């Protein structure tokens, strides 16, 4: 693989199997691939165990997963600052057109839209509410469902778990409602 190919976005048929490799390595280390468990650990290490039994466990046994999180942060830094050209996401024309109808611009020129994530956007009540509520639903839903994309969609489906398939169907019900009915109300 040439350096030029590394600097380009990597195709799905390369990155998908590499994500499965991450799961395999963690299983081989005697662990499991589940990123949302770290959110529970963060509650537990902040003393939430005094308020709810759900957080009253020996979170130190989960330190390995927090180290994976630390690595993921470092990996994000390395990928953007050393292994990428300026971001230019090759989005579908229909996707770009739909976002233009919101009045958005520079679509796909960064990993996340400035209309949601820029300092300007975050300086408003609406901007803060979008991000905090988005995170809240992700955190609440992941723990309620017993896992997120890594725990259910990748690990659970790889182990042919029917409950994980039901959870992934739920991910899509929620995602489709948000994308097709609620996002146009917020940004349209």
């Amino acid at each position: 693989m040439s350096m030029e190919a590394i600097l380009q976005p990597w195709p799905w048929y390369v990155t998908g199997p590499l994500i499965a490799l991450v799961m395999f390595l963690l299983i081989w280390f005697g662990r499991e691939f589940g990123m949302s468990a770290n959110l529970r650990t963060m509650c537990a290490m902040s003393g939430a165990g005094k308020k709810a039994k759900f957080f009253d466990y020996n979170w130190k046994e989960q330190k390995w997963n927090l180290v994976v999180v630390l690595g993921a942060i470092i990996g994000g830094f390395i990928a953007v600052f050393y292994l990428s050209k300026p971001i230019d996401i090759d989005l579908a024309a229909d996707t770009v057109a739909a976002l233009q109808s919101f009045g958005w611009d520079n679509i796909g020129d960064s990993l996340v839209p400035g209309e949601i994530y820029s300092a300007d956007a975050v300086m408003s009540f609406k901007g803060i509410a979008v991000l905090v509520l988005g995170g809240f639903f992700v955190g609440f839903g992941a723990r309620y469902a017993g896992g997120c994309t890594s725990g259910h969609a990748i690990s659970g489906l790889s182990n042919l778990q029917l409950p994980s398939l039901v959870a992934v169907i739920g991910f899509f019900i929620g995602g489709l409602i948000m994308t097709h009915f609620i996002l146009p109300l917020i940004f349209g």
Partner: protein
Amino acid sequence: MKYLKYLLVGIFFGIVMVKSEAVSWYRIYEMFRFDSFHMYGIIGSAVVTGVILVALIKKTGMHSSEGKIIQFNPKAKTWPRYIIGGTLFGLGWALAGACPGPMFVLLGTGVFSILLVIGGAVLGTYAYGLLRDKLPH
């Protein structure tokens, strides 16, 4: 340093998530509009590879790097939590455009406003812990 291997796996994961563009809000939006095969290709090829790897682990009776038998814990077969919890998760995923792995990867890419999403996710997890006994599972 017994945690080094986890740090390296995390770094690898972070790089793959950025290079796949799966950390992008735009890609999640595109996926839920069914406008592109990209995200389905990533998740689909990850699952196909994963199914093969998990089957091989079971068939060969592979041991962990610490010499223990690798066990898979089957998920409990009660349905409300998966469909209700999953739907709530999906609402947040499509709004913030980030799930629990990518939200940390994005922090490393310099998107500091993602801290609001991470803070919200920790709060949501805490709220679930408080309400857990009152929710149908």
